[in-house]
């Protein structure tokens, strides 16, 4: 009990918690400080960015300023500048005294007097206005009357005012004025001021003009900003406010704070990636895009994606975050952002990667399996139109029947009124059917047009019995890239038995037909023709380094191994000639992609002979199974399964649909719907669990997401391997990333309804028909011809390049262009030739365009050169006989030997011709363009053989630059204009006279 007696302190009442409290309070305080610091600094990293930007940019500008000032000085020292400057000084001096006088009068006389008068006047007017209001609200006529009298009294009141003198001498005068006088004084001064200001402006007009001229001189010559402008920017930096910089677009609910860190993006000075130490401050690499898409109207994230609102960190702002659905595009895919608003286009100027992706989608045949809006639109429209036609015909039939019933009812009706009603109904139906007839007619035309446009991506397999070597087929089906590396036919992962079954089906279901036996041609001539007629615009030949030609169509290096000679001759001679199919009318069969080069039989045989020699000595094992009907039956299933009919015309599968998924909106498909299969976890860990990662890997190896899966062969992924290279994969990925469902309203999307829509439409046809294989249509576009050694190395052959079409719309008349595109021979009889440039070895092929396509293409060229629609021919002044004589002289003068190069249509003359036939100029060309062409051909078609500087300026007219013929010396008109008119009024008789002169 001893310890119990010992008193222990009570822990609750005696223990002190001061230390606990103190520590806790300090911690609390610390957490509070932390919270404030977090709020002010850590959550606002852009503050640090802005402080650095201000410092670095100021320094950058300060260093730049003297450089620009020096450049400006150099320009100021130039004689032109000095001259204008001197003139400006003189002009200013001349009016200086008058200006000073006006300024003094206005500043010290007129304006002070006007102000004083107005002040006094306003006091009176306010009083009157108040009285008026009282009158308006008063209900007592008596009161109103007395108040009106009050107003009269105010008006009559005489006020004493002290007014400065109007001449600006500084003196004042005291006047006693009434209300109206004050008003007149005020208005008078106002008028005086206006007059003086106008006078001042007039006096300075000459000086102002000269100053504008001087400034223009400076801004034209100075690269970059002027020193004063830079001073302005430096001053801006001094007043720079640190804070969030944002763009807010109400209508699309977009808030972009990107410029809180990317401060240099829109600066007028070009800032390189390292100019301000950190790349984040560089200016936009393509400022021209910002002038088209003003950031104040479009924002940043609308094109680039990313989280425009986020300012906490780079990762969050760029949206590279698991939960942000629209991560910023990586630089290599940045053009994906264009597609959402430019979805109607296949060519978007400036979007080269995106355009390449679209072109690949078109020209690798992706659309054979995967629908994408716009690609193969003709087939879809054809289906719709055919359906509509069936509906209309059904309605038509039903109407006809009802009409007959009504007529019968009318004939047997009990009374006249009822009969009338029946007859009226019958009449109405008859009229409806008449209208339907018209509609059906139009749709039938459209159907025919569309049927002419529909093309399968690959060749028709109905022809293979006539066309191909039997034993070669299974080898090809098995691995086309082994036979022909880079072929557009992709590699399917087929079992050997599937290869045999597919080959058997194709072989047994191909069409039988008769081929004309063709004698062999001359292989050497064939090679020459093959290399120069235009085949290489699309086809290539040779492998590895010796490969030349385009990649639009097949590489023909081994074509002799696979193809039947007789068929080849027929195909080269006229690709549109098909073996008749008893089950499908010719009009409804898809057309071949290959156009006709209008070759003669002999030329066709020569080329075919050359091509049939393109072979290795590989032997193909016999394939007896290809005649086994059971194999063929199994082959049908395999063909369906792998979707062969998406690209090829195959008997029995004409109506087969696409087997792939629609990719029109693939970029906005939720990530969870992309099947990463067993790669999901790996993708998450390695950071490619994204649309980009999926597309890239899938395109590189379409079977990649099958890896490790336990699956039956037919359950495996079907997409074949195209063996794309890294650039192609990136382009297609960019395209697919951009294929999103846009959230932007119509005004943001580029869906023009004016002539720009014609340009959009035209590019589709151009891409589909590979016009750019031969022609340059956009600067920078390299045609296949331009890569062939013969054309690059030999200057004579360089003249043989197909013409550039940069300004085709301005050059030619639309009617002529449509006719030319329909029949480039420009002749019904002599069809085997070039219509315009007969001297060219290469031929403009006949593409069998539909009327609709002809119209679209013509409109494309016209719209691109802003030609007015519809086309109105320019009026042309008729030549007088004297003018015609002068024209003739000029035409054949030694200094302008037009006929040395230009064709005339006379065989003996045209042997050496290297320029178009000007006899057809009047129907082909536009006079205005021709005139400009003669003056400055090089600026219209860089590199043209047409000589420049044929004319020189003489006052306001152009005169011939060479020796002027005697008759022309006294002519005081424009020589170029005269020549144009001469050319446009040329006829056969005149041509004979010309020849006589030569």
């Amino acid at each position, binding site marked *: 009990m001893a310890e119990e007696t010992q008193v222990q302190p009570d822990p609750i*009442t005696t223990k002190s918690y001061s230390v606990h*409290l103190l520590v806790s309070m300090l911690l609390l305080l610390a*957490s509070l400080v932390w919270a404030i610091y977090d709020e002010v600094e850590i959550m606002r990293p852009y503050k640090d960015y802005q402080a650095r930007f201000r410092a670095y940019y100021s320094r950058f500008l300060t260093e730049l300023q003297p450089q620009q000032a020096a450049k400006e000085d150099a320009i100021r020292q130039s004689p032109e500048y000095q001259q204008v400057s001197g003139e400006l000084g003189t002009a200013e001096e001349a009016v200086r005294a008058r200006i000073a006088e006006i300024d003094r009068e206005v500043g010290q006389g007129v304006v002070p007097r006007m102000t004083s008068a107005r002040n006094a006047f306003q006091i009176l007017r306010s009083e009157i206005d108040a009285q008026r209001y009282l009158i308006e609200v008063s209900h007592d006529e008596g009161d109103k009357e007395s108040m009106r009298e009050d107003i009269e009294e105010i008006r009559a009141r005489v006020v004493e005012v002290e007014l400065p003198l109007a001449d600006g001498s500084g003196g004042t005068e005291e006047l006693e004025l009434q209300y109206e006088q004050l008003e007149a004084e005020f208005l008078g001064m106002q008028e005086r001021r206006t007059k003086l200001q106008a006078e001042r402006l007039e006096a300075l007009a000459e000086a102002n003009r000269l100053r504008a001229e001087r400034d223009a001189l400076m801004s034209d010559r100075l690269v970059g900003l002027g020193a004063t402008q830079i001073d302005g920017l430096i001053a801006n930096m001094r007043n720079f406010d640190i804070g969030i910089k944002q763009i807010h677009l109400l209508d699309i609910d977009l808030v972009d704070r990107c410029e809180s860190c990317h401060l240099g993006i829109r600066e007028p000075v070009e800032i390189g990636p390292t100019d301000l130490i950190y790349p984040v401050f560089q200016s936009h690499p393509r400022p021209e895009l910002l002038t088209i898409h003003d950031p104040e109207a479009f924002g940043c994230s609308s094109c680039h994606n990313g989280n425009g609102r986020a300012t906490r960190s780079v990762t969050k702002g760029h949206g590279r975050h698991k939960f942000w659905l629209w991560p910023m595009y990586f630089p290599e895919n940045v053009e994906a952002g264009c597609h959402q608003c430019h979805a109607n286009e296949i060519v978007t100027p400036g979007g080269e990667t995106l355009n390449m992706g679209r072109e690949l989608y078109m020209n690798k045949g992706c659309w054979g399996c995967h629908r994408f809006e716009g690609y193969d639109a003709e087939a879809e429209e054809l289906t719709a139109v055919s359906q509509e036609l069936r509906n209309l015909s059904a309605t038509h039939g039903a109407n006809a029947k009802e009409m007959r019933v009504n007529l019968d009812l009318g004939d047997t009706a009990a009374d006249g009124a009822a009969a009338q009603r029946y007859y009226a109904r019958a009449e109405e139906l008859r009229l409806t059917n008449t209208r339907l007839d018209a509609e059906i007619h139009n749709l039938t035309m459209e159907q025919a047009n569309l049927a002419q446009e529909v093309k399968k991506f690959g060749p028709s397999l109905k022809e293979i019995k006539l066309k191909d070597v039997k034993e070669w087929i299974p080898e090809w089906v098995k691995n086309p890239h082994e036979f022909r590396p880079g072929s557009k036919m992709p590699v399917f992962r087929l079992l050997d038995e599937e290869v045999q079954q597919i080959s058997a089906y194709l072989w047994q279901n191909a069409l039988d037909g008769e081929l004309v036996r063709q004698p062999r041609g001359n292989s050497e001539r064939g090679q020459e023709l093959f290399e120069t007629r235009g085949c290489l615009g699309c086809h290539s030949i040779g492998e590895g380094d010796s490969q030349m030609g385009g990649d639009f169509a097949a590489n023909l290096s081994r074509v002799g191994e696979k193809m039947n000679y007789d068929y080849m001759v027929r195909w080269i001679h006229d690709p549109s000639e098909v073996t008749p199919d008893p089950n499908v009318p010719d009009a409804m069969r898809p057309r071949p992609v290959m156009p006709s080069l209008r070759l003669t039989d002999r030329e066709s045989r020569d080329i075919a002979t050359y091509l049939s020699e393109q072979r290795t000595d590989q032997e193909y094992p016999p394939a007896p199974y290809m005649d086994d009907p059971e194999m063929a039956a199994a082959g049908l299933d395999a063909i369906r399964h792998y979707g062969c009919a998406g690209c090829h015309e195959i008997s029995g599968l004409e109506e087969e649909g696409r087997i792939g998924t629609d990719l029109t909106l693939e970029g906005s498909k939720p990530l969870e719907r992309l099947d990463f299969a067993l790669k*999901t976890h790996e993708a998450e860990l390695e950071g490619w669990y994204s649309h980009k990662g999926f597309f890239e890997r899938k395109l590189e190896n379409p079977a990649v997401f099958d890896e490790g899966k336990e699956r039956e062969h037919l359950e495996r992924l079907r997409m074949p391997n195209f063996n794309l290279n890294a650039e192609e994969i990136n382009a297609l990925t960019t395209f697919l990333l951009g294929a999103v469902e846009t959230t932007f309203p119509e005004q943001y999307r580029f869906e023009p309804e004016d002539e720009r829509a014609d340009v959009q439409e035209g590019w589709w046809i151009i891409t589909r028909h590979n016009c750019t294989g031969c022609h340059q249509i956009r600067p920078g576009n390299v045609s296949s011809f331009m890569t062939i050694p013969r054309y690059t190395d030999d200057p004579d052959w360089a003249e043989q390049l197909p013409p550039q079409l940069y300004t085709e719309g301005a050059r030619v008349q639309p009617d002529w262009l449509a006719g030319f595109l329909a029949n480039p021979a420009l002749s019904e009889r002599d069809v085997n030739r070039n219509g315009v440039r007969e001297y060219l070895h290469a031929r403009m092929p006949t593409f069998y365009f539909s009327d609709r396509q002809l119209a679209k293409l013509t409109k494309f060229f016209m719209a691109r050169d802003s030609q007015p629609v519809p086309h109105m021919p320019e009026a042309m002044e008729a030549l007088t006989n004297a003018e015609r004589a002068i024209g003739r002289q000029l035409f054949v003068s030694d200094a302008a030997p037009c006929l040395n190069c230009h064709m005339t249509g006379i065989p003996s003359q045209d042997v050496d011709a290297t320029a178009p036939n000007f006899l057809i100029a009047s129907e082909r060309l536009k006079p205005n363009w021709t005139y400009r062409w003669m003056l400055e051909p090089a600026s219209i078609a860089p590199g043209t053989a047409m000589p420049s500087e044929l004319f020189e300026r003489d006052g306001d007219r152009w005169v011939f630059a060479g020796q002027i013929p005697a008759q022309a010396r006294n002519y005081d008109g424009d020589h170029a204009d005269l020549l144009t008119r001469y050319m446009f009024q040329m006829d056969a008789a005149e041509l004979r006279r010309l020849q006589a002169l030569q």
Partner: protein
Amino acid sequence: MDWHQLWTIVSLPDNIPIVGMLFIIPFFTWYALRQARANDRLVERLENDPDMAKTHHRKVQPFKKGWVREVAVWPYLLRMEFLAAIIVTIILMVWSITLDAPLEEPANPSLTMNPSKAPWYFLGLQEMLVYFDPWIAGVVMPTLIIIGLIVIPYIDANPLGNGYYTYKQRRFAIWAFIFGFIILWCSMIVIGTLIRGPGWMWFWPGMTWDHNRLIFEINRDLHEIVGITSQPWIGIFGGLVVGGFMVVAGYACHRIITATEFSRKILGRMSLLQYAIMQGLLIIMLALPVKMAARLLFRIKYVWVTPWFNV
């Protein structure tokens, strides 16, 4: 062992409270029981020492000589509460600075996230949906939980243990709480948070949450196992099984209630209505682990299938 996966789950801002709960709940349970045992010892001492019981009123701490008889709320309690409030504030401040609100991607009505989880405090309810009909798990059970919590003061016939920690005097209440709240409710939240992955499948900690995981599991109704196929009999059979469970569970509960002299005394203070309500709630509470075991171990989907509801 996929440490990355484990860390992803554990470090999710949403899951931080659950991870905290894993440690905090056992700690405070242990701490409360420790105090309860100390008090129980004091009660024993006071019972044996009537003099001391007369002079000393404090019921906390093993009593020592010289301690004040009564401790006032101010300042002794309030200063501790103040200190606690400061510490909690610090924790909340630091928490809110370091961990952001767990916002995820914008909702997409055409795409349900997988796994699709309720807020952590509802995960127990969501887990119950695995074992019961939505009507039972989503409506009846939550209602009964709320009603049960409301009626506790009205069916609690034990007058002892107010205002101090004690184990001896409230053994039954404490075990009911530990069973119902800690074992059932909290563990179901933990399961829902840490164990249930894509497809609401069972993933042991450290397993990769694989969206493509396939498991072979066939859950069958009890009557199918027994071989009853037509309706009135299915309903009657299920009713009998459930009724049987109730009888057995009720008997077991009764045995527990009447296990000691003390608890029999408390039972004597209860009216029949109070007793019936308590039994009803206990039986239903017991039904949950029984059904969980039936589902997880024996793959039984429903025991009682009727056209109106399933149990």
